[in-house]
């Protein structure tokens, strides 16, 4: 059995990991096609999550998750535009 203070610590850590790990796999997946390379993206993603792993405030965590979701949508838009522009340039005379 764990001593009380340690137990609280573990629960906090789990919640942090839980929050961050919910968003991380999706962002990592999206980063596969990043223009500067999947590795570049993964390193930056990991650094960003590591930098914030000690954040406790649930409001701040929610904020960061929202930012992560924003980045995800930006990536989707990037990929779509890149493909659309490539097809447009290749097949359509303007």
């Amino acid at each position, binding site marked *: 059995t764990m001593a009380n203070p340690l137990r609280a610590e573990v629960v906090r850590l789990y919640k942090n990991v839980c929050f961050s790990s919910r968003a991380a*796999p*999706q962002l990592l*997946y*999206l980063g596969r*096609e990043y*223009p*500067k*390379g999947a590795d570049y993206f993964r390193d930056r993603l990991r650094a960003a999550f590591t930098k914030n792993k000690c954040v406790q405030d649930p409001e701040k965590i929610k904020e960061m998750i929202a930012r992560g979701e924003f980045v*995800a949508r930006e990536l*989707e838009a990037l*990929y*779509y535009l*890149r*493909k*659309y522009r*490539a*097809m*447009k340039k*290749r*097949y*359509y005379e303007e």
Partner: protein
Amino acid sequence: MPQKLGYLDCLSSGTPVVTLSCGPLPPQIRVKPDNTAVVTDGVKHSMNPFCEIAVEEAVKLKEKKLIKEVVAVSCGPQQAQFFDSDFCLTQETIRTALAMGADRGIHVEVSGKDYETLGPLQVSKIMAALAKKEDAQLVILGKQAIDDDCNQTGQMTAALLDWPQGTFASEVTLEGDKVKVVREIDGGLETIKINTPAVVTADLRLNTPRYATLPNIMKAKKKKIANVKPADLGVDLTSRLEVLRVDEPPQRQAGMKVETVEDLVCKLKETGRV
């Protein structure tokens, strides 16, 4: 080369996506040393862009409750295609369509020499057979595959089925038992109304395909993909084409800078262009 396939959707099994990658070492399209084909080993493949648009359109129609079910079809080998990959490209392409919202998939097994010579004629025969078997009302494909640029599969499928076709669609509207299609043609747009069942091919501006997100891909793993052999459909895959030679386009000549308009006219006259 592997062709796009559609059913109520359209997928391409193995269209090389090369110009889309902008990494530090952009992959170049290379011709094999024996000039028989383009090198596809190690080249990142994904669903044909026009097929993504076709899938999106089908899913949209289902979301509007205008159609009951979306079936995604792709043809290709059962096993991994490349030595350096351990996944099945055809399966992955179908899974992407399922993640976008298709209900189930059909993997038509084509491998080896048959796969190498698979072209619009063979694919359209498969599509026609499947459309009849599944009693489809609408077959949607991408207008062309970006690896061979044939722009034939949709048209051939319609001909084999004796169905009307709405090709180069930039807008599709279901009106009762008819389909209104706005087509992109040279010189503008043409609107036609055709009876169902019908074949439609998707053009670039038909819609904006949704991204297959990781949660959706996970959910899509529960959806079924049936395996079918062309022989089961009574389709003969023999190719009537023989590729004689594949060459790279001629190297671009360096440009010349001129100082004045007179110089330009001079040079144009010299090279016989004026």
